[in-house]
């Protein structure tokens, strides 16, 4: 985000708050300002350019209604360089802890809204203390600041098409418990609600209150601080949603962006076993080896969890931290090794997956420093498939689509947590 952009407030225009209630921060904050954009001259202009406009938390809906109406009027005027089409498929609540994460999340949702029009409610918890803010709200609690802005996309002819809105609620971390009520009042009726919390293991006052009320809970296992956090996430999800068996998910769909990132690996590894001969060989798996990039350990464990779940392998023993003995339902032992590879970067953090089955090796390996994976087995000619890591916005879009519902994710998470914890499924 660049420097705040000051605009003139439209005389008698939309949502002019009484001066005594005007927030102290700049009236309009710019989103990433793009070269060649005009500097907004008033609030409507700022809104249609996607700048964040400061509003009173209790006037958010009224301000938005006015801004949309005026923006639509202006879009009809001659020479307008944008059009207004309001659309909404989701309420999307996103949480960010601290300014850096807020900026990262903001970029993500700007791109997501190009594809999925949604009312976005962005919760930004800051590290300020109430004292440092210098004043208190009438009810004595620390203040919540609110901003609204429009999200848009480029239409085919290059015009900006204003489609959806974003509401940012900014509060010091200690005021977090004040957020759920406000958020509930802002949810649009008749569209489902998704909640994105990248790292759900961080302490949070509001998460346990809002999470059970949404239709889709999205997190990102690749953003977990360490592989042990898989255990925490698994137990958190169990407590939030009372998961009592692999598949009996409550009314909430749980989506892990890290799991979606692993999709190409799962498909490619699965494709090694499509022929009847290979599928037969898979029943005799004796060793599984996964290599991962330095930050890919949670991903490698999750992928191992998937293999355990699908191949009905149970944890038996842990040796040397990431070397495991598993047992199959037929009673034979399988060795699983999860190792760090020498590569720095790999699609979804994985460098190779190898399965030794009945004396033959079935392997999916990253080729050198390309983004191509070579698939080899004694049953097929080697083939190469590029794997384009899907950028986060694309994953988010997938998470909000039908692809987001995947009961196997929870199964894989449970098995990976079991590997990390050493038993106790």
């Amino acid at each position: 985000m660049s420097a705040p952009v000051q605009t003139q407030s439209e005389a008698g225009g939309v949502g002019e708050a009484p001066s005594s209630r005007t927030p102290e921060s700049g009236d309009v904050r710019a989103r990433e300002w793009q070269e060649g954009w005009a500097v907004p001259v008033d609030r409507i202009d700022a809104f249609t350019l996607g700048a964040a406009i400061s509003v009173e938390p209790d006037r958010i809906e009224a301000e938005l209604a006015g801004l949309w109406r005026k923006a639509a009027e202006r879009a009809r005027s001659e020479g307008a360089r944008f059009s207004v089409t309001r659309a909404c498929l989701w309420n999307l609540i996103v949480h960010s802890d601290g300014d850096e994460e807020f900026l990262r999340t903001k970029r993500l949702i700007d791109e997501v809204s190009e594809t999925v029009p949604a009312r976005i409610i962005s919760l930004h918890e800051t590290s300020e203390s109430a004292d440092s803010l210098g004043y208190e709200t009438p009810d004595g609690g620390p203040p919540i600041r609110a901003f609204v802005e429009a999200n848009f996309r480029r239409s085919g002819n290059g015009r900006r098409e204003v489609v959806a809105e974003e509401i940012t609620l900014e509060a010091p971390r200690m005021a977090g418990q004040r957020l759920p009520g406000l958020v509930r009042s802002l949810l649009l009726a008749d569209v489902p609600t998704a909640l994105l919390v990248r790292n759900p293991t961080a302490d949070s006052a509001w998460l346990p209150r809002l999470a059970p009320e949404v239709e889709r809970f999205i997190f990102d296992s690749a953003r977990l601080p360490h592989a042990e956090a898989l255990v925490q996430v698994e137990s958190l999800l169990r407590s939030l949603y009372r998961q009592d068996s692999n598949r009996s998910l409550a009314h909430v769909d749980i989506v892990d962006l890290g799991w979606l990132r692993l999709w190409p690996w799962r498909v490619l590894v699965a494709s090694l076993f499509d022929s009847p001969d290979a599928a037969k060989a898979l029943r005799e798996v004796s060793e599984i080896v996964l290599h991962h990039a330095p930050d890919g350990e949670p991903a490698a464990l999750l992928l191992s969890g998937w293999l355990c779940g699908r191949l009905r392998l149970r944890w038996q023993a842990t040796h040397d931290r990431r070397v495991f003995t598993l047992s199959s339902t037929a009673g034979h032992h399988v060795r699983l090794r999860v190792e760090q590879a020498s590569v720095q970067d790999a699609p979804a953090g994985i460098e190779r997956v190898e399965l030794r089955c009945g004396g033959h090796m079935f392997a999916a390996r990253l080729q050198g420093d390309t983004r191509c994976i070579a698939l080899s087995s004694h049953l097929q000619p080697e083939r190469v498939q590029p794997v384009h890591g899907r950028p986060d916005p694309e994953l988010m879009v997938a998470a909000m689509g039908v692809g987001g519902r995947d009961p196997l994710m929870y199964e894989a998470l449970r098995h990976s947590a079991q590997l990390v914890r050493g038993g106790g499924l």
Partner: protein
Amino acid sequence: MSGTELHSENPLREGLVGERQPEPCAMVIFGASGDLTKRKLVPALYTLARERLLPAGFAIVGVARREIPFVEQMREAVNKYARRRPVDPGLWSTFGSGISYVAGNFDDPATYERLKSHLEAVDAARGTRGNRVFYISTPPESFEPILQNLGRAGLISRSEHPWTRVIIEKPFGRDLASAEALNKVCLNVLREDQIYRIDHYLGKETVQNILVFRFANGIFEPLWNHKYIDNVQLTVAEAIGIEGRGNYYDQSGTLRDMVQNHIFQFMCLMAMEPPVAFEPNAVHDEKVKVLRALRELPSDAGSIADWTVRAQYGSGYDKGQPVPGYREETGVRPDSRTETYVALKLFVDNFRWAGVPFYVRAGKRMAKRVSEIAITFKNVPHTLFKGPSGAQLGRDPNVLALRIQPDEGINLKFLSKVPGPTIEPRPVTMDFRYGSSFGTEPPEAYERLLLDCMLGDSTLFTRGDEVLESWRFCTRMLDGWAAADESATAALPSYEAGSWGPKEADDLLSRDGRVWRKP
């Protein structure tokens, strides 16, 4: 959906629901040096490969007359036409290595002997396991010799393993007799479920959405009948002319080129009863019933004009540039009577649609490119609202328009009160646009259709009896027109290029007290 997706024995496939991956197979394209192969087919296959939707064992074998550097040409084509460009060198190393070419004349049995041994080598090298899709993308004269020669050379397997499927491009016949003859040839060598007659309009997302709109929403289906619907208008308008294809078009005309296939398919999807399942035969059965219920048009020269209008475009302007009239186009006979515009009034005589006219129009060089189905609902039985002079207000009917292209979406027109102290109803629209609600890029029609064929799913293709029924109907019309031409009773109207069609088409509706929509 039926089909041959992989995974039954592979536990790792479970849950990979989004990925419908077919069994290994070779795709043999007849007409490989042609325009369609380069612009659509190979780019679509490349995109499928990129999205990991092709099976591990896959190969493309091109067949055409000339010796050409096929692999290089296809790489260029992918670079130019694929949805995801430029070519990814890593992917191309696998995809390109599976492409090969066999040169030969389609009429020569030796071509098929060479093809046979080539395919055996492909099976060994690429693991395609004897499964084949033969895509016949050639001029229609070659359809029959190819089918017969494939049969004679033993290239068609009638068993389930390995399987053979054949995709046949349009046009499937030019009248009932030729379509029946072609169908017979097909059925001599193939079972019906091995034949995939392609209509690429059915691969379009918005056409498939007609079914979702009707059968996944509770509120529309109860209104979808003669009790509530006054009339239906189906429009497929093109702004372009015949684009240098005068020789072809003059033999064909709009009825054969657009109505018999694409428009009748839309109409079937719009008018059919709910199928018992979303499965090929269940869907085809319902479509055929619609075609069978079409009221026969009179075939005599005198009365055909009460139901149909055909016309040719004259000169005019396209986006401000002067354009020639149809008869001045290269390749068109100066005394041609081939229609570039058709308007029809049809009835589907069944319980649901009794008395509801379906007005159809299609043409070239029209005001703009648009395909849509517009459903006009009946008016309220009694109008409450009156203007100052006592005139009835609020007689504008509700219109639901399903826009197929461009600007895909759905809009509903209804009346609303103009703010103020009087009651003044004014039409407003509720608008859904695909582009706004789903920013994702829809797949190309050919991607979807090629994948479906490899999966053994023919829901979005046309079954033999559908094609024959629609030809039966259209041939009667063609006969009526031929009779009119012979008795020279009917002058062929013309319309200005860049307009919405001839005056006669307006008269067709005004006789019923209706007007065409301006989409």
